[in-house]
Every structure is written in C-alpha cells, then in structure tokens.
C-alpha cells in the first residue's frame, strides 16, 4: 500500500494520541502509528525522535528507562497531565479543521 507523508504539524498530535492508551518506547510508537493508520501513515525516524524530545521538553511527555522483555534498556514515554490537556485541545482543533476542509471539498 502507498504511504502518505504526514500533514505538517500533525505528528505531535498523533504521538500524544498513541501514547494516551499505553506508555511506549520510540520504535513501538512508530509501529503503532503505522498499524493504527492501516499502513497509510509512515513516520520518518528523522522527525519522530526530535518530536519526542521536543514534547518531553515541553512537559507533555515524561520518559522512564525500563528493561524490556529482551533485556534491553528502553526509553518509555508516557503522557503527562499537561500532555492530556494538550491532546484534548489539539484533537478539538483538528476535528474543527477536518470538518471545515470536508465542507469545502464536498
């Protein structure tokens, strides 16, 4: 299936959304995004990790180092309180925008 590049500015929201279910490490976030979008959305690692670090610096994500099943140390990200609030805001924004675009395109 063809992959589509992400819309500018949506990556942060998607990461927040994925992490709102479970804390995950970086690789798991990228595969989750791929699965959830049924292989349509392909995230470049080149933008995923800077985004994660950015969100962490803004206080929307917190990170913890945990030992995984294979015995490796993984950096696991989870949503903070501020992150949850940010997700609600961004999601509401997104829905408004998508609805508006749909109105125009219909």
């Amino acid at each position, binding site marked *: 299936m063809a992959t589509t590049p992400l819309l500018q500015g949506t990556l942060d929201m998607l990461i927040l959304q994925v992490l709102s279910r479970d804390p995950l*490490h970086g*690789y798991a976030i990228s595969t989750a995004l791929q699965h959830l979008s049924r292989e349509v959305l392909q995230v470049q*690692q080149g933008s995923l*990790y*800077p985004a994660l670090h950015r969100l962490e610096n803004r206080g929307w994500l917190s990170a913890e180092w945990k030992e995984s099943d294979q015995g490796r140390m993984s*950096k696991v990200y989870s949503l903070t309180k501020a992150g949850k609030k940010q997700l609600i805001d961004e999601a509401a924004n997104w829905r408004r925008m998508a609805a508006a675009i749909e109105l125009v395109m219909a």
Partner: protein
Amino acid sequence: MTPDERKLQAEMDDHLRSHAADLESQGLSPAEAMRQARIAFGSVEAIKEECREQRPGNWLFDLGRDMHYAWRMLRRSPVLAATAVLSLGLGIGANTAIFTLIDCLMLRSLPVERPGELFAVKWQSKKHPDDAVLRFSNGSSSGDKDGNVANYFSLASYGALRGKMQVAGFLEANAASVRVDGPAESAQVQLVSGNYFNMLGVKAYRGRLLLPADDEANSAPVAVVSHRFWRKHQEIVGTNIRINNKDFQVIGVTPPEFFGHEIGTYPDLEIALSKVATMGGPVDERLLPTFWWVKMIGRFPVTPDLGPLNATLVHSFVAVPSSADTTPALRLEPAAQSLSGLRREFSEPLFVLMLMVTLVLFIASANVANLLLARAVAREKEIQIRLALGASAGRLTRQFLAEFLVLSLLGAALSLGIAYVLVQAILPLVPGEGEVTLLDNSPLNLRILGFTTSVSLFTTVLFGLWPARQAARSRLATGSPKRFSGALVVMQVAFTTVLVLGAGFFVQSLRNLNDQPLGFVRERLLLFSVDVLQAGVPAAAAPAFYLELQRRIRELPGVSAASASLVRPMTGGGYYNQIALGNNKFVQSALHPSLPGYQEALGVGLRAGRMLTASDSLDRVVINETLATKIFGQGNAIGGTFEIGGLPPRKMVEVVGVARNARYERIRGEAPGVLYRHLDPATDFRGGALTYVVRTTQDPAKLLPEIRKTASSMNRDMPLVDVRTLEEQVDELLRPERLFALLCGGFAGLALLLAALGLFGVLAYRVNRRQTEIGIRLALGAPRFALWRMVLMEGWRWLAIGTAMGVLAAYQGVTYVQSFIYGLQVAELRNWVAPLATLFLVGTAAVAIPAWRACRVDPMVALRQD
C-alpha cells in the same frame, strides 16, 4: 560522553535492535535484519543532532562552541578576517563616534541630583509685550509656535516668584578679568543665587559652596571655583583673588563632574547674584523692575500649579499688558533639553550625520557579507560533507552566523578605539565647551558600549542571516547567492551615491561661505577685546583711556590703522536698535558704536559722502547702502536726518556718508542695515568690552607681543580677550559648518573606498570562478577585448543601477538638505555632476582591474585547473 549523550545513543540503539528483532522474526538473518533496520532508520548522527537541538538552553552552549570554532576558522584565513574586521571596525566606529557625540551633547543628563526634576523657567506670550511693559531686556527671546518665548526676568519678578516656587536665579557665565597671583587672566564668571548649589544637590569638592547668606546685599564677597580652575591654581581655597578688580575670597571648589547646569558651558567661577555690580554694566538699572536679565532654573518633583504664579508674574511688570495676547504666562522646559543652545544647534546636523554613518555601516557590512558568501562557496564541498554526516541545516546556519558575529564583535572592539580617536579629533571643533563636558567625564559609558554591541548584533542578523542560510542548505550553486551579492553591490553603490552627493553639497556650501565677500578687507586684521571698567578704570575715565590705547597702538611700527567698536564683527551676534521713520514706522539697524577711524581700519568702502572723523559730533552718522535704501528709498541720503530709538526720548541724527554694504555678524542671509556712529560717553561705557581692530602691514601674530606690552603698560589688570585675526574669527564663525563638511566628506570618502572594494572584490572573485569558462572562450577564439568588455559591462551595470537608485533617493531629500546649504541650489542637476563623476571614476577603476585580469587569463593554465 556525557550521560545525556549515552542515553541518546541507547535510545537509538534500542530502536534499531527492536526493529531488527521484528525483521528477524520475519525470517531474515540477524546481519541482514540489522542492515535493513539501519537503512530504514537513516542517519543516526543526523537524528541525534536534531534531538540535541530540542534541548532547552542549548543554544548558549552551542553559541560558545560555534564562536570558538568560528574563531579557529577565521584564524586560518587571516587576510579575510582582517579585511572584514577593519571594514566593520570603520563602519561601527563611525557610528560609535557620532553616537558618542549625540550621547555627550544630547543624552547625557546634567551632573546634578535627580536632573529629571529640573526645569528652566521661562515666560511666553502670544505676541511680544509692548515696549511700555517690558523696557530693557538682556537675554534671548525667540518665536516658536507658542508665540514669543523669553528666558529672562526682572529682579522684582524673580524676587516675587522665588518665594512661591523652588527656583534659583542666575546670570549666565560672562568673561571677567580674574587675577589670582600672576597677571590678570580672562575667566568665565557665573552669578548664582544663594540656594543654587543646594537646589541642584551639588556638594563641595573642597571647602564649601555658596549659601543663601552669601547672597545677602551686604555679605562679604566670596567665590567658588570650578574643579578645572582649581587644577590650575591648587592653593586657591581661602585666598583672596580679584575679579574685575574687586576682592573676593575663594571659599570652595565644585566637584570634577560638575560643569554647570548647561551642556556646552563651563563657568570657571561662581559668585553670588547680589554681587552683580562686579560684572560691570548698568548696575542701577539692573535693580529696576523694567530691566529683565535674571534667568531661573527650578526643581519641581511634581508639576506646579502655574495659575497663581502667573498672576504674580503679571503683577511684576510695570504696566498692565494691553491685551490677552500680550499677557505673559510662565513656561517650564525640562532643563536638560531647553537650556543648552548647543543642543538646539546640533540636533539636526547630528541627525544627518547619524543617517550617514548608518549608510557607511551598511556598506561595510555588505562587504563582509559578500566576503563570507564567497568563502562559503569555496567551502561548498566541506558543507556538503558535513550535511551528509548529519549536521542539521539550522546548526550550520548558526555556525556561519557565529563567524559573522565573531567578526562583528571584533569589529566593535576595534571600533571603540577608532571612535575614541575620531571623537578626540572632532570635539575640539565643537563650539562652546563640549570638549570639556566630555573629557572631564569618562568618554566611554554603558550607553555607548550598549549601542556599539547592539549595532554589531543588528549587523550580524541583517547581513549574516541570509548568506548563512544559503550556505548551510548548500544552495550556493544555484543562482540566488550570485544575485544576492550583486544586489549587495548595487545597494552599496546606491548608498555611496547618496553620501557622495551629500558630501559634495556640504563641502561646496562651506566653500561658498568661505569665499563670500565680506565687504571689507579680510587679510592682516587683528581683533582683541578689552574692558577697562573690569580693570578698575572708572567709567568717567574710560573714553579717554580707550582713545589713548588706540593712539598708542596706531604708533606701533607695522600698524597701518586701528580703531575699536562695541561690537566685534562676525561673531553671530550684534547690537541692534530701532530707527523711527515717523507715523509709528520703524526699521531695525545694526550698530557699530566706535572710536574714530573704524570704517577705515575695517576697510569698508564708501559709496557717497564722507567717513566720520574725530571732530564729528555725536549726531553725525554713516549708514550703509541697505539702510539708506530702507530709510530714504532711492532719494539722496547725505544730509538726511532720522531718529534712533524705539521709545522716546529718541535721538536725532544726520547722515554724512553712505558706506558700502559689509557683513556684520554672519555670512548667511542678507547683509543687514548698519549704522556707524561715535561712541557716546553717556551711554556706551556702562559695561561690556570694546573690540579693537588693528590693520597691520605684516603678519599680525608678529605684532601681538608689542600690542600686549602696550596694553599692559597702560593697565596691568587688563587682559586682552579673544585675540584672533579676522580670518580666525570667520573660521570660528564657520566652525559648525566646517566640522559638518569635514565629517560628511570623511564619511563619503570612507563609503567610496568601501564600495569600490566591494565592487572590486565581487567582480574579481567572479572572474576567478569563471576562469575555466573564460579559458574555453579564449581557446574557441573569443577576442580578449570581448572578455574585457564582458566583465566591464557587468561592473558598469551594477554601477549604473546603483547610481540611478542613489540619485533617485537623494532627489527625495533635496528640500530637506537645502536648508543646510549655502549658495547652491541642490535641485539644480548641474551641481550633481562633479560628485557623480567622482563616483563613476572610482567605480570604473574598481571594475577595470578585474576586467583587465579577465582578459589576461592564459587559456592553457585556466583549462588545467580543477
């Protein structure tokens, strides 16, 4: 490796291994799985770098590292770095110098406590009050949008107002003869009320300062000296000195930073206002409610209610004002801005200069931008490798910016030195005591440092950002940088055009002022002033004394004529009176109340009739052509009579001669009507110096010792004040114009040099880059002349576009600039030819050299390159 770096690496490793494990579970071999994972991931270093950039506060650390790196890179190309630093140093230095002038003349606050609370107290009325209300004044009144504004009060009105507001009165500094131990010297003496120092909050440096008790009518005469005066006479405190031949005891010294309450002035001594008799002049009249001469400065922490104060002011006039339009009201002006005439005089020229140096800085910065851009092109391979290795574009941009920043900070440091030298050279040319104001304070302050730093930062962002971004994205191969450097060169030429045109106008204007005929003989004329009253000669004996001095000077060998007038020619000030024509009509005339033979000594020609002789009575006068036309029209003036004076009693005089027009106090404007008359013993010897004019047959400087000896043989307490030749006097008068023209010319020259360098540099660089192409063309048979023309045309195109833009921009400013220009119509395009020709010649020279080099390219050598 720092813990942060280890964690970053671990996170990347974890990702790769997780991905590889997934791929292995799909049946790939471990090695192949890892390879695939790495391919999918991309450049680990690049991603790590992007992540690092997300860290907060990182930029400061990066900046330090970038600047260190930039410093190392620049040290590897010292010629480029030195050129750039020198360019920026000159550009920023010119800015810092002009800003220093602005700082010391405009921004520096007065050296007193809470200067913001100080206000000059003046009064204003819509129309000038009737002569019946305001009889004599000694101060300046000027018209502005509010009508007539005056800065003087009568002793009575000052006395009435001082009880109701916190004010100090003063009589601004005047020259006086002061004898400490040796011979008498001329010093500036200011009269102040007893509360003056206390109100300003100035504390004594030695001894004590004046107190209200010192200002009582019968108090002992005491004086305070300035720190500058004290340095010359260190043992002075407690001793007696003579000021205008009267005894004063020196009680203290003002602190080093205190130069008075007005920038541009610096009194040497201060004595109490009640001792006004010391300064000579019509003492008794100063006590009259009709004589207005006291100035006031007040401290107002809160704005006072002027209503009741205005009533007090109006009552202190001798007569009731005739209408609302002539009713005076008080006016408060912030002291820092309003008191200094120097500030008023210089604010516009300084603004123009600031504009000019900003353009110079742009021109210099454009050179540096072009240099760095050229070098970035040369480093393109390196940049591409670094991008491939994972450097982010943002990071590279910052690194290039850091290079500009390092250059510009080095330039700023250099500029402080350049500015210091420039300011030292400029300040002595500033009229008044500006230099003292500055030099006694520290020439460098936080404001100036802040200004210089922000200018260099601003320059960095404005001129460094775009080239840095282009370089960092490795877009240099495309056309835009080429266009960018071309645009910079065009901009340089345009700015230079404006500067060269402006400088051309100002220099020509100065030349016109200098060459303007004065109406009398300029060469070999010596001027000096003496005041015998200050030397202790009684007023009754003064006329005979002055005549005797004239006689003795005339007898000196080498003197062909000598006389004296109450008015010194060409000082920018004079003595004017009204001439009544009857029917309540008046014309204004400048006066030369003088000793016999004044016209001859000055060398003013005669148009009709005869000159005044010693035997003429006081009612015989000579008037100049302008005045004759104003009074008598085209009719015959000889033998005609008229009355001098605005108010009765007037004085009837008869014209015996008409003199040719001559300049009186200034060169600009129309020559005024001038009346020559003998000095009147009844009115003209109440104070004020007489200025002798001595015509010599040889160099006047050689006669000076003899003249001094002659003067001191008559009275040893009588210093010769302001000894100058007439040429020096005119130079003094034109000092602001000269300073301005000098600076404009200097900045335009600098701009021309920098722009020529820019033009030359960019073209030479392009010829270098195109060597291979030129080689191929030559090998294919292109004539060398065609290549020469190709490069020349490219340079000329920039030159032409830039000049055209500059001319258009300059044309917008024509009306503004015209007010500074004398004897030259700026709008007339023929006056533009010489500056533009200069620009074209210099520009062509800068273009011709690279063009010449282009046609000297050896095709074989060029083709073997690369």
